[in-house]
């Protein structure tokens, strides 16, 4: 397993996969990120991130059925693994911990 460090974009992609639970494939993830973050992303960036996540064991994938809207091509459906879920939760917990540690005086 590669290092468990999760880059910012990887985290976003992992979150998008979780949001589109059950129907997370390349194009859907692109749409999700664009909608959520309002910025355009490259398909290549998404796929390469998905690839890395799968290598780290944070997502798993399988080929889905054919759909007419894709010209009869199948799509690869991604799913967050238990380990992926724990990684997301850890990040969130870490962030919360850090938020909590910010002294009130910092914002004055």
């Amino acid at each position, binding site marked *: 397993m590669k290092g468990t460090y999760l880059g910012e974009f990887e985290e976003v992609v992992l979150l998008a996969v979780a949001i589109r639970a059950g129907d997370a494939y*390349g194009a859907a993830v692109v749409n999700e990120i664009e909608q959520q973050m309002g910025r355009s992303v490259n*398909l290549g960036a998404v796929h390469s991130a998905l690839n890395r996540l799968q290598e780290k064991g944070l997502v798993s994938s399988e080929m889905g059925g054919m759909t007419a809207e894709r010209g009869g091509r199948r799509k690869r459906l991604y799913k967050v693994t238990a380990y992926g879920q724990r990684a997301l939760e850890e990040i969130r917990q870490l962030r919360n911990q850090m938020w909590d540690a910010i002294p009130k005086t910092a914002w004055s």
Partner: protein
Amino acid sequence: MPNNPPRPVGPRFATYLLHWILAAHRAEELEGDLDELFQQRVREVGLQQARWRYIRDVVSLLRPSLMKRNTNHYPNPAITTMLRNYIKIAFRNLAKNRVYSFINIGGLAVGMAVAMLIGLWIYDELSFDRYFQNYDRIAKVMQNGEFNGEVFHGEYNPAPMGTELRTVYGDNFTHVIMSSWTGDHILAVGDKKLTKRGNYLSADAPDMLTLNMLSGTRTGLKDQNSILLSETTANALFGDADPVGKLMKIDNKLDVKVTGVYEDFPYNTEFRDMKFIAPWDLYVASEAWVKRVQDNVEWGNFSWQVLAQIAPNADFDAVSAKIKNIRLKHNPEVAFIKPVVYLLPMSKWHLYSGWDKVGNLEGRIQYVWLFGIIGVFVLLLACINFMNLSTARSEKRAKEVGIRKAVGSVRSQLISQFFSESLLVVSFAFVLAIGLVLLILPVFNEIADKQIGILWANPVFWLCGIGFSVLTGLIAGSYPALYLSSFQAVKVLKGTFRVGRFASIPRQVLVVVQFTVSVTLIIGTIIVFRQIQHAKDRPVGYDRSGLITVAMNTPELHQHYNALRDDLIRTGAVIDMSTSSTPATDLNSQNSGFDWEGKDPNFKENFGTIAVTHDFGKTVGWQFVKGRDFSRQFTSDSSGMVLNETAVRYMGIKDPVGKQVKWNGKPYRVVGVIKDMLMDSPFKPVYQTVYVLDYGWANVINIKLNPAHSTRESLAKIESVFRKYNPGSPFDYRFTDQQYALKFAAEERIGKLASGFAILAILISCLGLFGLASFVAEQRTKEIGVRKVLGASVTNVWALLSRDFVVLVVIAFGIATPIAWYFLNTWLHKYEYRTELSWWIFAVAGLGALIVTLLTVSFQSIKAALMNPVKSLRSE
């Protein structure tokens, strides 16, 4: 689809790029994603923008992590993978059909081995004499002319020819060499005496022939009393000691000093028999008649060979043109034969010398062509087998082709599969063929009188061998490759695939070609052997059994004729002894200058002339038709003459006995006429010959052994007598019947080679036929089963299966007969004494081919006919 306007698609070039660069297993999902996003963007931001984004996405996808091939799920379809698969399938096919594989590989290997042998033989023939560095500049001095309407070419030259060329035409020549002929001589060192073949040559011969000197120098021949030995001769005479400077004797009379040892001439050179070289000057000094002829500049005695190397700037045609009238100039009285002196270059000595009566070339080159053609044909037969069997099996492979096509093979892949399969078989065959050649070469060398080896180190040989194997593989594989790959997958797999009615026609044509070649070769072999037998059965006019000849090689033998004869007869081992100018198997002297009563003054006569002694007749057992033998009781017989029957007819005189015949003015009286004695070639008519008494003109001793004693005992006794009278020479003798048999050597060689090739051709054809028959029997298993159930007998089925093949062989026979007749008729016309082309020879050959065919086919058809129909009908 509901959308009426055509669905927009992203830029094609980008999609191509994607497919080209990205891993195949990702292409589908990525393309799907791209397409989905593209459609969505067309709706949201318009086509232009969508196309732009599409390209950007594609470019962004071209990253190493996405290009990585996934090896776990799919094999990597590189070219070697497919090739591995082809070879694996090929091996499995070979192993599964052992009989077919054996026939295919074995047949092809035999064909290739034959082609290789013939190729090596042709190479050897073409490289004849190339050992000599001056190959391009050496020539024989020859002359041609016309005598009694027949063109002749001769390489016998008068003694002054050498001097004439050297002095008058010296500018054109680097070397002019006089040569006695290579003949037997006795070499003696101390008590060691050996008979070796050697030659007397002018002193610069070693330079012209570029002898490879192992010790001594090429100038060694300049000293009159010197000798050069070949390596083997030097070893035989001196063992390991250095022979240079040692003294020895030639023919027990000439003392010479060894001045050099040269490397043996290779077997494929003109001079391979020349085991020693002595100086021409020594020859002239030791032979009084040669000295006389040379000193008196006699142009009329043609007894020697003249070799020459032309000057670097000269060419053969130009020099020939300059010297062509030499003979006319020096003896103008022979102008009526139109003599022309010319040079025959070394490159033509071996293959292009030999002329028929009208002057057409009849050299060995014809055999080179003949065997070349046979080789090509035998190879063709083997290739035909291969093609035939592969196409015949095509129906079995059809399912495989169907499945391969369904799975996605394109035609070019199938073609390359079948080509690689045939190349595999060919490479097996090539290796096997080399093994076969190694095995056969010793026998082949003996039959063909050659010393050929495989040219392991010669790149040309390998280039030819491998190039030729590849070519064979491609030709042999082309038909199955192009034919099988054209099958339609759907039809094949549905089972509706049927080869058309005419699919077997090419196969049948090939079988006909095979058998045409085989039958032609069978007929040819029979005729060659018939011709040899015909000549062997010829009456020879004397008795060969127990007759031996001993060469009179030392002066001692000439002095004690009567004492030697008495001693020999006293041993009891010998019935009689005589001397003669030539052995009974050789007619080496012809002369003109005869005159007789009633001769047409314009008749240019020529007779074979032989000197004998009183006892010659009893020794060889000649038979008289008229008159009597020479006898000591008539002293007048010293000028007596015996004619043969042909001579009597030739002279056109009736009742010849007692008539006078003059030879060079000297009168002879005819005492008897003998039945023709066959002394020259057994394929020619007997030559008109006269026999005269002359005890001085004697070259051989003829001895008739006593049949009451064993040959070995007799020879031992004779040897002891010869030791006494001829101490200077080893006792060497020749059996006349063996010498006689040598006259058939050339024809027997052709006969043996032709029969060998014929047998191989038939073998190959039968292998092919066997394969085809087994295939047909297998294919018709069901049909045979049904027929048997309905009551067909074994004979019916056998006839049914054999008929097709018999028809083919009969057609082949019909084609082969005129071809064979044409070629053999031409061949036979070369011989004046020849057998006839009887119809029964053709019948026998045809019948033989038919029987062989039936035997081959019957094995399979009877096997098929005996099969239990329950078994053959049950399986599907």
